[in-house]
C-alpha cells in the first residue's frame, strides 16, 4: 500500500487532505474500494484453493495422513486423515468461498468499482458512501464465513447449494452454528451486492462523460451494467430464501421441512432462480473485459460491436428462464423440464455469437501477445469447452446420466476457472498499472500463464471422463463403489496436477506483491489503449479528472486509417471531430 500512498500524493487532480483512515480504510473513492475488494477477494481465492487441495488429497490418497494435516483438530482430521464430516465441509466451503468471496467480488467488486467511473468518465460513483458500505458489508460477511471454519461442530455441510432439508435441520447435517453462520454471512454478501449494483446502474445511467453515448461504451462497461441489473434482481431472491432458511434453522419455522408441512423443492426453485442469473454474473463481466483486451491485443476494432451488446442482453434475459435445468431429475414436473431444456439450448446461440465475434476480431489482426492477451485468448479457448459441455446436460435425457457427476464438475470449472479466472488474471495484469502505477513482471506473468494453462487442463479435462463413467460428485471416497475403483489412477493424476496448479498460483501472488514495490514504473498508457482511463496518470489520482474528458468516438478504434499510429483514443480530438452536444450539461 505504501507505493499507492506515495504516488497518490504525487498526483494532484484534487487537493487531497483526507486522513489515512478516510483514504484507505473507510474510503469512498471508487478506486480504493476496488483495490480493497481486490486484496480481500484474492485472500479468499487462496482460502478456496487451500480447501480444494485438501479435497484433492483425500480423493487422490484416501485414508492417508495429509502432509501438514496434523495441525487440524481431531474433529476434522485425526492424525491428518480427513474425516467424512470434514470432507463435506471442504466441499461446501470451497464452493462458497470461490463463488461468493472470490470470483464474484473479483469480477464485480473489483472491476465494476474500479472501471466504471474511469471508463465512462466521471469523478466517482453516484453514491460513494453506499459504495463504501458495499465493501464493508462484504468484509463482515467474509469474516463471518471464515469464522464458521473454527466453530466447535465445524462449518456448513450441505454443499454450496444448501439443499433443504439437509441444510435446514441440524439433526440431518450434524452442524448447527456452522450452518447458521453460513446463512448470516450470505445475507451480508447479498446486501453488499445489492448496494453495489444499485450504485453501478445509477452511475452508468447518469454520470457518463459528454459524448459517451450508450453505443460508445466499452463492452466491459456494458457487461458490468447488465450484470448489475442481474445482481439487483437476483440477490434479493437469494437473501429472502436464506432468511427463510435461517428461520428454519434457529426459530423453528418449517418452510423447507416436509415433515411439518414445508416444501423441499421450494428451496431449489428459489435458490436456482437466483443461481442461474448468478452464473451469468460470474461470466458476463469476464466476457466484457476479455472483449476489451482482445480488441487491444489484436489492434482491431471489436468485430460486431452491436451484436456483442445484444448478445450480453440476450444472455441476461434468457438467464432468468433457465433455472429449472438444474432440476431435471429433482422430481419437478417433466413437462417443465421440456421448456427449460429449450430455453437452455437457445442460450447457446448468443454465447456462440460472442465466440465467433472474438475470433472475427482476431482475424487479420496484428496480434500482440502481452500477458493479458494470452489470458484472453485462453479464456475463449476454454470457455468454448465449458459452453459446449453445457449442451450435454441441457439435453434432458443425457442429463439423466451425467447430472451430479464429475462431468458437471468439469463443466462448471471450465466456465468458472477456464473462463472467469483466466479473464481475471488477464484483467488484473491489464489494469494493474492504472491501480498501482507499476507493471507486473512480464516474464513471470508468461511463466504463470503457461503453467496454469497446462495444469488446469490436466486437472479438469479428465473429470469429463470420470463423470461419463458415472462418478458422483461430493463422494468422500469413490472407492466404496466397485465400478469406480478402476478410476483411481485418474483421480491420482488429477490430484497431482491440482497440487501443481496450486503451486503455480503462488507465482502470480508473488508477482502481484513484488510488483507493488519493485515493478517497472508504468507509463500513462502502457498497452496503447483507447479507453478514457488511459488519459490519466498511472496510478489514477483521487477524483480522477479535474475536468472530465470529452468523448469523440467508440472505444475500439484500433488501426484506424485516420491516424498514423494503430490506436485512436476515445478522448483524442481530431480536426474533423465536433464537440459533443452535452459537453456542459454532463459535467458537474
Amino acid at each position, binding site marked *: 500500500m505504501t507505493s499507492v500512498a506515495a504516488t497518490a500524493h504525487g498526483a494532484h487532480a484534487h487537493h487531497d487532505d483526507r486522513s489515512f483512515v478516510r483514504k484507505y480504510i473507510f474510503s469512498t473513492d471508487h478506486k480504493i474500494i476496488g483495490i480493497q475488494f481486490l486484496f480481500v477477494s484474492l485472500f479468499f481465492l487462496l482460502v478456496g484453493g487451500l480447501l480444494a487441495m485438501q479435497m484433492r488429497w483425500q480423493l487422490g490418497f484416501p485414508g492417508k495422513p495429509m502432509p501438514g494435516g496434523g495441525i487440524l483438530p481431531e474433529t476434522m482430521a485425526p492424525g491428518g486423515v480427513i474425516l467424512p464430516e470434514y470432507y463435506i465441509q471442504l466441499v461446501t466451503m470451497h464452493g462458497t468461498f470461490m463463488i461468493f468471496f472470490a470470483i464474484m467480488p473479483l469480477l464485480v467488486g473489483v472491476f465494476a468499482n474500479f472501471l466504471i467511473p474511469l471508463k465512462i468518465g466521471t469523478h466517482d460513483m453516484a453514491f460513494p458512501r453506499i459504495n463504501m458500505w458495499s465493501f464493508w458489508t462484504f468484509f463482515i460477511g467474509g469474516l463471518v464465513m471464515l469464522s464458521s471454519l473454527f466453530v466447535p461442530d465445524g462449518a456448513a455441510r450441505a454443499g454450496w447449494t444448501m439443499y433443504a432439508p439437509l441444510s435446514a435441520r441440524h439433526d440431518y447435517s450434524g452442524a448447527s452454528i456452522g450452518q447458521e453462520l453460513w446463512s448470516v454471512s450470505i445475507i451480508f454478501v447479498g446486501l453488499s451486492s445489492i448496494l453495489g449494483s444499485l450504485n453501478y446502474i445509477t452511475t452508468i445511467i447518469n454520470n457518463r462523460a459528454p459524448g459517451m453515448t450508450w453505443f460508445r461504451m466499452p463492452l466491459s462497461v456494458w457487461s458490468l451494467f447488465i450484470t448489475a441489473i442481474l445482481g439487483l434482481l437476483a440477490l434479493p431472491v437469494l437473501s429472502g430464501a436464506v432468511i427463510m432458511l435461517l428461520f428454519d434453522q434457529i426459530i423453528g419455522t418449517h418452510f423447507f421441512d416436509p415433515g411439518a408441512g414445508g416444501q423441499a423443492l421450494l428451496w431449489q426453485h428459489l435458490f436456482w432462480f437466483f443461481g442461474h442469473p448468478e452464473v451469468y454474473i460470474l461470466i458476463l463481466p469476464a466476457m466484457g473485459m476479455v472483449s476489451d483486451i482482445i480488441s487491444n491485443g489484436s489492434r*482491431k476494432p471489436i468485430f460486431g460491436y452491436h451484436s456483442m451488446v445484444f448478445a450480453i442482453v440476450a444472455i441476461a434475459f434468457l438467464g432468468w428462464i433457465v433455472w429449472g435445468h438444474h432440476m431435471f431429475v429433482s422430481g419437478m414436473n417433466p413437462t417443465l423440464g421440456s421448456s427449460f431444456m429449450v430455453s437452455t439450448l437457445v442460450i447457446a446461440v448468443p454465447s456462440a455469437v460472442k465466440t465467433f465475434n472474438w475470433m472475427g476480431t482476431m482475424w487479420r489482426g496484428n496480434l500482440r501477445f502481452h500477458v493479458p492477451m494470452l489470458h484472453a485468448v485462453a479464456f475463449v479457448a476454454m470457455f468454448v469447452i465449458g459452453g459446449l459441455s453445457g449442451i450435454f446436460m441441457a439435453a434432458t435425457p*443425457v442429463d439423466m446420466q451425467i447430472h451430479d457427476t464429475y462431468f458437471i464438475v468439469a463443466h462448471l470449472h471450465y466456465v468458472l476457472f477456464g473462463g472467469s479466472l483466466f479473464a481475471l488474471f488477464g484483467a488484473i495484469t491489464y489494469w494493474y498499472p492504472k491501480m498501482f502505477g507499476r507493471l507486473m513482471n512480464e516474464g513471470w506473468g508468461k511463466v504463470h500463464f503457461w503453467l496454469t494453462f497446462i495444469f488446469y487442463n490436466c486437472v479438469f479435462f479428465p473429470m469429463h471422463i470420470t463423470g461419463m463413467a458415472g462418478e458422483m460428485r461430493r463422494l468422500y471416497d469413490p472407492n466404496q463403489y466397485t465400478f469406480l475403483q478402476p478410476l483411481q489412477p485418474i483421480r491420482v493424476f488429477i490430484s497431482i496436477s491440482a497440487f501443481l496448479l496450486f503451486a503455480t498460483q503462488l507465482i502470480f501472488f508473488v508477482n502481484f506483491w513484488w510488483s507493488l514495490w519493485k515493478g517497472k514504473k508504468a507509463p500513462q498508457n502502457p498497452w496503447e489503449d483507447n479507453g478514457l482511463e488511459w488519459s490519466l496518470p498511472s496510478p489514477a489520482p483521487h477524483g480522477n479528472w479535474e475536468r472530465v474528458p470529452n468523448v469523440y468516438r467508440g472505444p475500439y478504434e484500433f488501426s484506424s486509417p485516420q491516424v498514423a499510429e494503430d490506436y485512436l483514443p476515445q478522448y483524442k480530438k481530431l480536426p474533423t471531430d465536433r464537440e459533443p452536444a452535452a459537453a456542459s450539461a454532463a459535467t458537474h
Partner: protein
Amino acid sequence: MHWWLPPKASTFTGPIDGLFLAILIITGIAFVLVEVGLIWFVVKYRARPGRKAFYTHGNTRAEVIWTTIPAVTMVALGLISNHYWVQIKGRNSIPPNAYPIGVHAKQFEWQVTYPGADGKLGTADDFTVRNQLHVPVGRPILVQLSSEDVIHSFYVPQFRVRQDVVPGMDIKAWFQATVPGTYELGCSQLCGLGHYRMRAQVFVQTQEDYDAWMKQAAQEASQ
C-alpha cells in the same frame, strides 16, 4: 480403465447413448472449428514489424450465418431430445404392466420393499430388504420412491436412470433392465456425512431366479 459411458444394461441406454454421441459429434465439430481457428489466427496474424491490422467493424452477413446455424441446430436438438425425454420421463411414460417395487431412502441406506406373491405393493405379503434391489430382467420396473429425511438420488449408471428422492413427495421412476448381472445403486445427491457409503447392490435376474429368490427372501423376512 473406462473411457466411455458405463456398460449398457437397460432399454434407456439406446436413446441416451445415441443422443450423447450425436451431441458429442456436433460439439466436437464446433470445438475443432473454434480451436483450430484460434491456433491458426494466433500463428498467422501474430504481430510483425510494419504490419497493420485490417480495419473493419464487422460483417453482417457472416454474423447472420453464425447466429442462424447454432440457432437451428439447438432447436433441432431440443426437439429430438424432447422426443426421448417424453418416452423416458414423461407423465405417461410408465408402462401399465410395470412391476412395482418400493424404495425408501434414509440416511444412509436404501430400504427396498417387494410386492410379494400377489405382485402388488401395500398388501400384507410385502416384505422389505435393506440395500438389495432384485429385479427381473426384460420387464418394466416401477420404482416408487420416498424419503425418510433429506433429499437422496436413485442412480444406477448402467441403467442410465436417475431420480431424486424427495421427502414429502411420492415420485415414480421406471426402467427395464436388459442384461442379467450385478450392479450398484448409488446416492447421487449430497445427503450428509455418510453420503459416500449410501450404496446398494442391484441384482438383475431371470424371472425364474427372481421368483425363487423372492420366495426365499419373503420367508426369511417373515421369520
